[in-house]
C-alpha cells in the first residue's frame, strides 16, 4: 500500500485529501509542522511527500534542510499556494523536481501521485533489474 506523508497546516483540506486517497487504498499520514514532518519521514519511510511551503510561520523547505547532505530519502512534491522564484530555486537545490501550485483538484493530484508512484516503482525495478544483470 503506497504511503504518502502530507505536510500542510490547512486542516480541512488535508482531511478531505486523506479521506479521498484512503478510499483508494493509500495510506495518508498528516503533519502540520516542520518537526513532525521530519520525524514522520524518518520513521515511516513514505513513498512520496506532499509539502506546503508556508507552515505556520516557518518555511516548508526547513523540512528538506533537516536532512542536510543526506537529502530527503523519498521523492517530494511541493504543493503550495505561492511558489516564488527564490523558493523554487532553493527547493530544486534540495532535490525537489515537482511543483504543484494550489488550487488543484484531488483528481489532478491523484493523477500526479499515481504517475510519481509508477515512475518510482519502475525506477526501482530498473535499478534492481540492472543490479541483477550486472553483478
Amino acid at each position, binding site marked *: 500500500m503506497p504511503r504518502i506523508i502530507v505536510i500542510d497546516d490547512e486542516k*480541512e483540506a488535508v482531511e478531505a485529501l486523506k479521506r*479521498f486517497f484512503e478510499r483508494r487504498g493509500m495510506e495518508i499520514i498528516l503533519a502540520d509542522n516542520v518537526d513532525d514532518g521530519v520525524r514522520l519521514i524518518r520513521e515511516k519511510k513514505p513513498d512520496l511527500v506532499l509539502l506546503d511551503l*508556508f507552515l505556520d*510561520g516557518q518555511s516548508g523547505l526547513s523540512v528538506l534542510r533537516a536532512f542536510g547532505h543526506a537529502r530527503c530519502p523519498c521523492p517530494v512534491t511541493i504543493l*503550495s499556494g505561492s511558489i516564488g522564484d527564490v523558493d523554487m530555486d532553493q527547493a530544486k537545490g534540495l532535490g525537489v523536481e515537482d511543483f504543484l501550485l494550489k488550487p488543484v483538484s*484531488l483528481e489532478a493530484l491523484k493523477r500526479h501521485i499515481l504517475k510519481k508512484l509508477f515512475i518510482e516503482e519502475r525506477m526501482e525495478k530498473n535499478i534492481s533489474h540492472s543490479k541483477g544483470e550486472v553483478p
Partner: protein
Amino acid sequence: MTDFLGLDFFEQLYLITAFITAIESVALSIFVFLKNTGSRLHRSYGLFGICVGLWSVSLVCCHLSLDLQQALLWNRLVHFFSVFIAISFYNFILILLQCRGRKVLNVGIMMAVIIGGFCFTPYIISHMSARFGFRIWPSIGSLYLVYLTFFSFYSYYSLFLVFRRFEQESGIKKEQLRYIFIALFIGFVGGSTNFAYSFDLPIPPVGNLFVFLYVLILAYAIVRYRLMDIRVAVASTVILFLVYAFVMGVPFYFFYKQQYLMSLLLMAFFAPFGPFLYLFFQRRANAALLKVQRRYQQTLIQASSGMGHIKDLRKLVKLIVRIIMRALKPDLCAIYVYNKEAEAYDLGANLLKNNAMPLLESVHADAKVVEYMFNEGKPILLDEIKIRAVDKNRVAASAVALEVAGFNAAMLVPSIIDGRMVAFMVLGDKLSGAPYTADDINVFTILANQAALAIENAQFYDEVKRSHEQLYQAEKLAIIGTMADGLAHQINNRFNTLSFIIDDLLDSIKVFQRDPAKLSVEQLIPVLELGFKSMIGNVIQGGAVVQGLLNYARHTQTEKRAIDLRELIEDSLQMVALKIRLSDIKVQIDIAQDAEVVHGNAVQLQEVFFNIVDNAHYSMTEKKDSDPTVIPTIIFHAKREMDTILLTITDNGMGIKLQDQKKLFTPFFTTKASSRKGNGLGLFVMQKIIQYDHGGKISFQSEYTKGVEIRIVLPVSKSG
C-alpha cells in the same frame, strides 16, 4: 507800502503775483520736462509752462520799466508769448486727451508765427500810456482783435475740450482732468482780465493776481492723482520755491524799502540757511506725504505677518483677498496664482460685488498682460496703460490695455520674487468711486511683495507635502509587494481547500450511488452538511483576506481623529498576519486606561505598527534560529505622560548592531537578506509619519542579541 518806482499797492501786488507765477511755472515745466524727456506729453507741458513763465516775466519787466519805450518792448513780448501760450496749450491738450486736431494745430502754429511777428509792430500794440491808476498800460492797435480772437479761440477751445472729456471719463483720469480744468480755467480767465483796460473797460486785472494758483493746483493734481508721474519732484519744487521766496523775499523787501544795507545783511544771513531749510522742509513734506501710507502699512504689516504662517495655499489666497477687500473695498478683487504644470495663472480666490462680470478662470503665461506686468514689476493702473499707449510702444500697450479691460479691472498688481512672477492680483474700482492714489499703489507694492513670499512658502510646503504623500504611497506599495506571496498563498489555499472538499464530497456521493449499503443517506447527509459548512467558512475567509488588502491599499485619508489604540494595534496585527504567521509569536498588549485614545491618522499609524511587528518578527526568527529555547514575544505598552501617550514596543529578537543603529532611519537602509523581505524604507517613513504628520517622537534602544525597545510619543486625543 508806497513809492517803489511810484507804484501803488494794487500794482505792487499785481507784480509780485506775476513774478511768483513766472518762477513757479518755469520750475514746474523744467521738472516735468526733465522727468521724462522722451515723453510727448511731458515735452508739450514743458513748452507750455515755459511760455507762461516768459509771458509772466515779460509782464513784470514791462511794469518795472523806467521809460515808456522800454515798457512798450516788454509789453510786445508779453503779447508775443501769450500767442504761444495759447497754441502750446492746445498742443498739450491734444496730446493729453489723445484727440484729433492736428490740422487745427498746424494752422494755429502758422497763425501764431504770423501774429507773433505782428506783435512787434504798432498794429497790435500802438504805444504805452497810463490808465486807471496803472503807470503804464498798452494801447491797442488796429489788428488787436485778430490777436485776441486767436488767443481766445485756442485757449478756450482747449479748455472746452478738457471739460467735454472730463464729463466722459471716470476714475483717476477724471480726477486728473478735473484739476487740469480748474487750474487752467483760473489761469486763462485770470489772465484774460488784463484785456479789459485796453478796451477802456473799468475792470481791473484782478484775475491776474490768481494766475499763480494754476501751478499749485496742477502740482496738487500731480501729487495726488499721479498726473505725469512726478510726485516727489513736485513736492521738492514747491518747497524749493517757498524756501527761496522767503530767503530771497525778505532781503528783497528791504531792498524795495531802499534799506540797502539791511537788505545786504539779511541776504548774507539767509543765504547759508537756504539749503538747510530746504532739506528740513523736504523731509517734513515727505513724512506728511507718507503719513496716510504709514497707517495703511501698519495694518498691512500686521496682516502680512500672519500670512507667512499659513501653509495652505488656498486659505492664504483667500486671506489676501479678504485683507484687500477690508482695506480698500474695491468692487472686485481676485488673485491668480502661477501653476507650473499648466504654464498659466489660475484664479485662486476672488470676491465680486455689484454683479461684476465673471472673471477669467485662467490666464496663460504667454499673455501680453502677463509680460507687461512682469516687466513693470509694480502695480499698474489701467488708466496709466491707456496714457502710455499713446506715449511709447503704442501697439503693445494698447493690446495690454485691451486685455486688462477684459478683466474689468482698474489695477493689476504683480507679485514678483526672485525674478519670477508667482501671482498677480486684479482689483476693480473702489466702491466709493474714488480713484487709486499713489498711497494705494505703495500699499499694494508692499502687499504684493509679502504675498509673493507667502505664496511661495505655501507652494513649497505643498510640494513637500505632496512628495511626502508620494513617499507614503511608495511605502504602501512596497509593503503590499512584500505581502504578495503571503496573499497569494492565503487566497490559493482557500481555493485549494474548497477544491479538495468538493472533490471529497463528490467522491462520497459516488460511493453512495454505487453502493448505498456502504454509505446510507443517513450517513451521507451529515458528511455533505459538514462539507458545505467548511466551504462557506473558506469562502468568507478568502473574502476577508481580499477586503483587508483593499482597506489598506485604498485608504488615503489624511485627516486625524481619535483612535482607540488597542483596536489600532489589533488591526495592524491582522495586517501583519497576511505576511507572516503570527501564531509562533507571543503578543502582549498592555495599555493604561488613560492612554487608550490617541489623536492620529489610523492608516498611517497602522503602517508604523505593521513595520515594527514585521521587523520584530524578522529579528526574533533570526534569534530563534540561534537559540530555539527563546519564545518570541512582542510587548506593546502604553501610558499617559502629560498631553502625550508614550508607547513602547519591546521585542526579544536579535536587536540592532551598534554600527547599524545610526543608519536606522536612513532611507533604503536594510539589514534584511533579500529585497523581498524589506525595501529599507520602513523606518524612514515611520519617522516621517510620527514626527511630521503627528508631531510626535520616535526613538529606539537596543543591545545586539537582546532585542529592541521602540519608544513612540503620540499626542493624546483631546476628545478622549
